[in-house]
């Protein structure tokens, strides 16, 4: 079965049935996507499936074949960070960093769908991503800033 991840095609076994998260991490070595709870509560494993944020611990890998998967490793274009990454770095957002791939993937999907999110829309979108270090104030600020950076980049084109 072929998976397309960050634009690259990988071949993985169809069986046994398993979820995308562990295929990414243990079979393909894409460990930027993190495991936190395995039950869809914490959001650490968030990736994009055809541009939509999903919990990779809840997605059977069989359902992903032929669809576009984006992980944190695919967010930057080479050396050039994605506006979300730039904003998270600028605000010195991560502490331990374990939840941050999921935070940034959730934020990226939000901004792609809604380039001008209100504070309430940011909270609604980000509320399912735990940060045990408690960096919420900076995450909130970074997402708003990322939206502005992304708009500026779009307008510049």
């Amino acid at each position, binding site marked *: 079965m072929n998976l397309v991840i960050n634009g690259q095609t990988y071949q993985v076994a169809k069986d046994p049935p398993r979820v995308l998260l562990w295929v990414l991490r243990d079979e393909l070595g894409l460990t*930027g996507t993190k495991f936190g*709870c395995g039950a869809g509560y914490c959001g650490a494993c968030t990736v994009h499936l055809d541009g939509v944020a999903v919990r990779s611990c809840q997605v059977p890998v069989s359902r992903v074949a032929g669809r576009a998967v984006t992980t944190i490793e695919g967010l930057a274009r080479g050396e050039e960070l994605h506006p979300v990454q730039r904003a998270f770095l600028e605000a010195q957002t*991560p*502490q331990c960093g374990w939840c941050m791939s999921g935070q940034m993937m959730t934020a990226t999907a939000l901004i792609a769908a809604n380039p001008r999110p209100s504070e309430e829309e940011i909270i609604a979108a980000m509320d399912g991503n735990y940060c045990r270090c408690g*960096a*919420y104030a900076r995450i909130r600020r970074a997402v708003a800033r990322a939206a502005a950076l992304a708009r500026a980049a779009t307008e510049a084109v």
Partner: protein
Amino acid sequence: MSQPPARRWRVSRRGFLIGAGVVGGGLALGATLGLPWLRLALADVVDGAAPPTIVTTDPAFWFEIAADGRVRLAMPKVEMGQGIHTALAQIAAEELELAWEQIEVVPSSSAGPVADNFGTNASNSVASLFAPLRETAATMRELLRAEAADRLGVAPAALRVANGAFFVADDPERRLSYGELAADAARREVPAEPPVLKPSTAWTLIGASVPRVDLPAKIRGAATYGYDARAEGMLYGAVARPPSLGATLRRAAPGEAARRPGVVAVVAERDFAGVAAESRSAAAAAVRAMDLEWTEGPPLQQEQIDARVRAVPGRGVVIQRAGNAAAALRGPGVITAEYRTPMAAHAHLEPQAALVDVRPDRVLARVSTQYPLGTAQAIARALGRDARTVEVVPTYLGGGFGRRMVSEVAVEAARLSAAAGRPVHVGWSRAEEFHHGFVRPPTHHVLRAALGPDGRIVALEHSQASGGVIFPFIPAPLRALFGADFGAWRGACISYAVPHISVSAEHVPLPIATGAWRGLGLLANIFAIESFIDELAHIAGADPLAFRIAHTGDDEHGRRLRAVLTTVAERAGWGTPAPAGRARGVACSIDAGTVVAHIAEVSRKPEGGVRVHTVWAVVDPGLPINPDGVAAQTEGNICMGLSSVLFERLSVRNGRIAADNFGAYPLLTMRDAPAIEVTVLRSGDVPYGAGEPPMGPIGAAVANAVFALTGQRLRELPLTEV
């Protein structure tokens, strides 16, 4: 797995070790923390930190200058989000006169030569390493200066230094970089006299909010944590778990496990059963196919635990005494209140994980652990090996919060690797995290006070009882020596100037494993004390903030407390009315040398419960090495603390911890995270801790605000009854 190059060390003057075997011919200078470290360790024990273990003579940290001029700082402290790699590099680069880009931080491993005997905990990394790091860096600088002076044919005093190079003061073209000097400087003897340290007025890196060194990799998902560690030919391990608290293996046999697909090794021993297989799921499935018989643990209930945790004035070990509180509290009019805090999970988002490769002659391990040396010793004990042949390299940690002072997972991976003859990775599930290991202990506090006719506190007594924090991890003779668990009573002492004070602590052995949780006893003790102070202020008819200031002492702590209280009052507009439907509460604390005051502004949620809108925080860590880092730690402590204060309660039902996952144990999310306005004060040239102290006042600040809003005094965490 790669191993750092072996170094040999020669002992030099003033206790320094000069390294040989540096790649490409360079200079390495290491320092054993020696006697000052022992003194610090003792102070830590008294203040309530980690237990001391055997102190080796290996250097505790070292610098290395390669021939290409790169400077590496091998760091004894692990990075778990607190920014310690950045802060320590700032201190080092300052004294070494490096441009910020010229220093690189690498984690040091447990095996020779570096060993950190205490682990990373108790907010003591910066405080304990500030002086030795500076002196070592300055000594290295002076070694290089002596070499440069000889080579350039000028007196050492004629040289200036900047950006990792010496140059002649009146002829800047004549210069030599550290890289050019390193190999020959390594043959010199350390100067006899301690170097002159840079005056604080000349600092450019210490006190600057430089960006964190670990964030570029974390932003790209490229940082390696224990769960991410990989090796050629690695297997995955799974371990059989007891079905209830206190259950043990009665009998273990491989059963059908060995015949399951992908299984490489099955271990069935007296105290351990597990499987190493080609995938995690294969390992987990095979464990379920093992033939295991468990003893039954007692059908423990939460009420049984809570009933044991009961402070009784006069029964605990006295840890602070002034005047004669017992006599002063004998008359009528004594004010009494009781407070309780529940058990809590650490809930670091990266579950425990380790990759261990057991080879015939040595063991290599990569572990997200707060205590590499302790982990190496535990692996050595389990395998019956010499601890010096076990090397634990810490990875980044996906949160630590005290839980990773013990890394059982590394021992599990080691036992499976020993059986399989290949590297084995074990990563716990969230359910394993909730059910195994240890939790924050429940606490109970009885506060008693007497007020004078002028409304001042005449006598104040705090009696607290807690499950173990440090005691479960130290031998009985040491427990007897200390009497009370200094981890549990962290934060329990009274910082106000009161004529008669008595504080006592009672260690309560519990049928559930308890231990260190961020701040140890701090959150619970300050919740109790600072809520009670608020009660006294209201009884005295005083403004809670003015009441606190009126009770601060004339010493340094008193001055610093007044400064944070006054500042937080200004920032929050204390004294101006809160917006309609809201109210404010204040609380303060001193911990690990750092003074903190919080004001919380709250309202009642329409659906019930407390909404915290804003927290104003003022933190005085003495000398903030990285003010933005201190601010980040303050924000994080407030949110993690609020999660406990508003929501978290771990309980036991029928011999099991009731929560399996976050569905039954929700954490604070963004919606409940307040706006946080942090002010970082600098009160001197000595740094104190920042990783835990800002947690202290958050519980009481919110509870006091709830009282101001509703007149309801909530004396038990979490604050759910509003």
